[in-house]
């Protein structure tokens, strides 16, 4: 009696497709991870135990560090509307191209007088540009006051939502500078805002 020989199949699986997918995902994650860190003013946020996640939409961030204040708002449409409103306020006109460029800038710290020049820089040059921070004083007409106010108006008209304000301060930043920002917010009757922190375990 001869046994029926079952042909032995190969146990090797074709890994090519899997490898393709894996590297595609890898590339995607590396790219997104890098894009998120494009902050012109590097700050080291203090640690706290709160676990509330910071939202991604309808939020304006005030970065405070090294004695400078930077401003940024989420959403490209809000940014365009904001630039338009600020241009009207300071008698400056921006071309649609400039508005488009401005809508790609996540956070900036230049006074209105330098803004046009800053927008027209190439992206690489923009990173090298030393931004002096947004001018701020205790009056109701300072540039930072207007930026925050116009951003709230722009967000309300476009999305019909109230803009959330977040302060991202550097750990080593002295308190008076932060207090200045808080005073400006309170002048606009913003009495609820977030402080951005990094996660820490409660000891």
């Amino acid at each position, binding site marked *: 009696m001869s046994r029926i020989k079952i042909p032995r199949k190969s146990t090797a699986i074709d890994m090519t497709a899997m490898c393709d997918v894996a590297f595609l995902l890898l590339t995607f994650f590396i790219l997104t991870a890098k894009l998120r860190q494009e902050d012109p003013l590097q700050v080291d946020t203090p640690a706290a135990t709160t676990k509330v996640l910071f939202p991604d939409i309808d939020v304006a961030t005030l970065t405070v560090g090294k004695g400078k204040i930077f401003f940024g708002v989420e959403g490209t449409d809000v940014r365009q509307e904001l630039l338009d409103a600020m241009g009207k306020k300071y008698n400056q006109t921006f071309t649609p191209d400039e508005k488009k460029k401005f809508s790609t800038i996540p956070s900036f710290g230049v006074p209105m007088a330098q803004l046009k020049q800053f927008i027209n820089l190439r992206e690489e040059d923009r990173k090298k540009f030393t931004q002096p921070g947004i001018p701020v004083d205790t009056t109701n007409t300072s540039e930072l006051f207007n930026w925050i106010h116009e951003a709230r108006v722009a967000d309300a008209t476009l999305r019909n939502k109230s803009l959330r304000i977040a302060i991202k301060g550097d750990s080593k930043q*002295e308190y008076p500078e932060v207090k200045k920002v808080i005073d400006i917010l309170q002048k606009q009757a913003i009495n609820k805002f977030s402080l951005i922190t990094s996660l820490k375990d409660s000891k």
Partner: protein
Amino acid sequence: MAELDTSGGGKKGGKIRSKKASTRIDLTAMVDLAFLLITFFIMATTLAKPKAMDTFWPDKTKKDVQLPVPESRTMTVLLGSNSSIEWYIGAPGKSAPTIDNFGKNGIRKTFIEKNKEIEASHAGPDNFMIVLVKASDKSTYKDFVSILDEINIAGIKSYGVVDILPVEVSLLKKDGHY
């Protein structure tokens, strides 16, 4: 490596042929590595997401919302230079401030203990402790966030951030914390 030779014995005799090397490369290790890196990047990006601490501040535009608060229920915390803390209960200058520090056995313990003491010595329903945070010009933003965090951890029901008085600055100066 993982591939089994299933081609069978092969003919004996015949022409001597140079063995054709397989063009297939074993990709298992490469896939392993790729997925390891993917996992790393997923973890790293989600963990780096910032957290937000919501704060509520009194409305400065309204002047008539000030409630009278007994002195004995208020604890004032002063933030000085180099992460130093001083606190006292009651009006400034009456009792010498206690020097404290951040940490589990520092200000957090003080908050919890004093809160219990005040709740026990006052009649309800409004017998909770009120904490006033006064940050001096020499304190850092980090201390400010830390003290708010400690207040949250200790479960203080009512707190406020108030401008520091010159009397309190001199208290800090006396202890070398300004």
